[in-house]
């Protein structure tokens, strides 16, 4: 086989691996956002938000427990994605979570929606993406 065909095959594998990594991280953002909604539902159920009752709530309030389970699952998936991907490409994608959380909060909790808040979220996502782009593997 010629070396040109060789390097084309290597390049194709690299692109496929990158696509898989990006797909996994997008799934991570969805899991992370779903986790946040569950954690908020759990927090709303706390009767007294003291240190100890909150700590106990992690195991006694089902949505809170489920929310942190999703968070753990997301962390494991993200580590898997990092195994064959570059951090500087994958990390900025994580900031998509802010977009999903905002959207889901308007939907589930009827948060107020206004231009200042939307602009703020877009600017934060951009800022986090810019920060993450500088990350090293």
């Amino acid at each position, binding site marked *: 086989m010629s070396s040109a065909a060789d390097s084309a095959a290597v390049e194709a594998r690299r692109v496929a691996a990158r696509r898989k990594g990006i797909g996994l991280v997008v799934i991570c953002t969805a899991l992370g956002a779903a986790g946040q909604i569950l954690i*908020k539902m759990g*927090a709303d159920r706390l009767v007294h938000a003291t240190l100890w009752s909150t700590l106990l709530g992690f195991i006694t309030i089902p949505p809170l427990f489920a929310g*942190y389970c999703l968070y753990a699952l997301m962390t494991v998936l993200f580590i898997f994605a990092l195994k064959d991907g570059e951090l500087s490409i994958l990390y900025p994608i994580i900031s998509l979570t802010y977009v999903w959380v905002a959207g889901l909060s308007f939907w589930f909790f009827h948060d107020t929606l*206004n231009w200042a808040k939307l602009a703020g979220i877009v600017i934060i996502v951009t800022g*986090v993406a810019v*920060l993450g782009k500088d990350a090293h593997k």
Partner: protein
Amino acid sequence: MKTPVESMLLVLVASFFGSIGAGFLKAGAAKLHGGFRYLFLNFKLALGVVFFMGSSVLYVMGIKHGQLSVLYPLVSLSYIWALVWARVFFDEKFTSRKLAGLCLTLLGFLFVGLGNQ
């Protein structure tokens, strides 16, 4: 309902503790050698986990009152703390790109704060 300032402060303190936790995890991971069982004997890793748990408790207390669409974006402040720790403890360079990211994130906070009504 307007998000109370105390809730925002709790989330900000949680993000601060979370970034300290991440710093200890990094310091602990750097010393990781000699098999899986040392994972449980690693003082810095254990401290990192404790800080993460403390941060999670404060976060949940913080988001009990107020809107998640205001409070969750505040978590991104932990990236800014992480930049400080990276510069001070791990001698990572502070680039102009990082400065740009930091300024954008802070500007975003300002807008989210303005939209909090």
